[in-house]
């Protein structure tokens, strides 16, 4: 049975073309699916269990999608709710959904798919040999797992299908693979599995697979032999090149994509233009394998304070690296002397913006910058220690001289205080998969009635 999936945009919170969404609804989709996150912005979201997008933007866009859902009369699914898909962000999204349902006077059945993993479950799986490292994987121990602030497992199509099977009009998923929310229904209805996963990968970033990436809305029609993709904004077109090139995007391997229960192989896929804006894809292969789910985990790696100064004097700009190295050595000695901290108990780094701020030791280019930004980053085991260190170094970052026989220079502090407490530094601590006998063994679905 052919399945029409409407994808309003690559992620909730980044906007979409309203006219295109309306055209998509008018074409009677079978499901509306949108992604709510990724690891792309770093470990903070997962570590803290918070969305990176503003609540106001999320609510405004979700309201439009809830209205579109009511008009289409089909399920609306969000994957990786609240950027990281932790249990806390699923609840955050459910709370927003409830508010909107009341405001719109909608009465809804809402399913929540929880993907958060109690550390004890992961520790037990590790002991049973069901946790396998991917490459490259951080070392893990039972103690390290227990110290993680959030662990999620990436749900695949099976868990999303189970949530849809509750009869929910809205499904709020925790962490899912980017593709699972799109492939779930076509797979359930017996469409070609290779086409289901490949089409889902093509559509997961919305109109990024088209010639107008910011227009958002994409429609994929899945069937028994493949899929057909088209953008719904009038200004956008899908071409064989724009569609096939999307397999490159954020993929370390453009031909093979691992998912729970197997992998997609697109080496034999053929891309054909049906007209100027629609592309037909056939020949993608789904290769079933062991049922594993990928794990993501984040833990606190310390607490940070930063300080920013700008060097504008020509001599200091020309000698910025030497100056920063001397300053760092002097400050490390001073921190040791005044605070009694060993050099293993903190780190102090000066990054030179204008010299090699983004690339560090890999930088190959040298220039003659007008000014150099000096970003001092202090990391310590506690915030109060990091804060105190940055206060200690503050006057020296402002006045440190290149030589002893010169008047003290004064650099530019852009604001007062020049230092900023960053709070916890989170780091990704898992790049592993967990084998499951039953896809639902590590996931939980709850259903509630909401709204007016």
């Amino acid at each position, binding site marked *: 049975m052919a399945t029409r999936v409407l994808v309003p945009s690559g992620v909730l919170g980044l906007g979409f073309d309203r006219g295109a969404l309306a055209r998509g609804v008018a074409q009677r989709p079978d499901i509306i699916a949108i992604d709510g996150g990724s*690891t792309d912005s770093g*470990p903070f979201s997962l570590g803290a269990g918070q969305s990176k997008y503003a609540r106001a933007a999320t609510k405004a866009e979700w309201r439009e999608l809830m209205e579109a859902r009511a008009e289409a009369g089909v399920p609306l699914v969000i994957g990786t709710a609240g950027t990281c898909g932790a249990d806390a962000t699923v609840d955050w999204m459910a709370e927003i959904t409830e508010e909107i349902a009341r405001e719109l006077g909608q009465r809804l059945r809402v399913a929540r798919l929880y993907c958060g993993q109690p550390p004890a479950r992961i520790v037990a799986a590790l002991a049973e040999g069901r946790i396998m490292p991917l490459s490259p994987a951080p070392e893990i121990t039972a103690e390290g797992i227990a110290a993680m602030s959030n662990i999620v497992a990436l749900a695949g199509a099976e868990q999303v299908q189970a949530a849809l099977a509750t009869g929910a009009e809205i499904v709020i998923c925790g962490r899912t693979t980017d593709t699972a929310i799109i492939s779930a229904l076509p797979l359930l209805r017996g469409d070609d599995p290779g086409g289901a996963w490949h089409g889902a990968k093509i559509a997961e970033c919305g109109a990024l697979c088209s010639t107008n990436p910011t227009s958002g809305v994409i429609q994929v029609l899945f069937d028994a032999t493949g899929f057909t993709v088209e953008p719904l904004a009038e200004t956008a077109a899908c071409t064989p090149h724009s569609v096939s090139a999307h397999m490159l995007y954020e993929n*370390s*391997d453009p031909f093979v994509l691992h998912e729970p229960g197997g992998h997609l192989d697109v080496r034999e896929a053929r891309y054909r233009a049906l007209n100027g804006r629609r592309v037909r894809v056939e020949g993608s292969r789904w290769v079933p394998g062991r049922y594993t789910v990928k794990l993501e985990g984040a833990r606190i790696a310390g607490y940070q304070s930063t300080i920013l100064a700008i060097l504008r004097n020509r001599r200091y700009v020309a000698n910025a690296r030497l100056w920063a190295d001397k300053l760092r050595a002097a400050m490390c000695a001073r921190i040791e002397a005044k605070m009694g901290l060993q050099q293993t108990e903190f780190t102090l780094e000066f990054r030179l913006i204008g010299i090699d701020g983004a690339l560090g030791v890999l930088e190959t*280019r040298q220039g003659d910058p007008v000014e150099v930004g000096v970003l001092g980053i202090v990391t310590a085991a506690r915030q109060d220690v990091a804060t105190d260190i940055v206060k200690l170094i503050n006057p020296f970052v402002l006045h440190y001289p290149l030589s002893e026989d010169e008047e003290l220079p004064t650099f530019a502090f852009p604001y007062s205080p020049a230092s900023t407490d960053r709070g916890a530094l989170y780091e990704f601590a898992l790049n592993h998969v967990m084998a499951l006998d039953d896809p639902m063994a590590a996931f939980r679905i709850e259903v509630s009635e909401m709204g007016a």
Partner: protein
Amino acid sequence: MTLGERVLKVRSKNAGPFWVTIDIFCGSDAAFAEVSARLATERVAELLGTPAQLVKRFDIADLNVVKFSVPRPVVQGARDDRDMHGAQWAALLEEAEL
């Protein structure tokens, strides 16, 4: 001539927190043939500070794309990371002499 001057576009981006992937869109069959032949994997590995045996390379003639994927020199968001999204590594290849 630098690689950036010869091709349409070079982009880099995270492929998950542990990998970075660099796509060189050559823009023509001729540019693809030249880049594919002349850009050694060892040179790319050196620019990215990675052992050559860890570099995955894909020469995709259908798209006129040469793609490299390497384990991130620093895991995304770790203390020593300088570029959360990994988009600046493209500049190292762009500015390299072909």
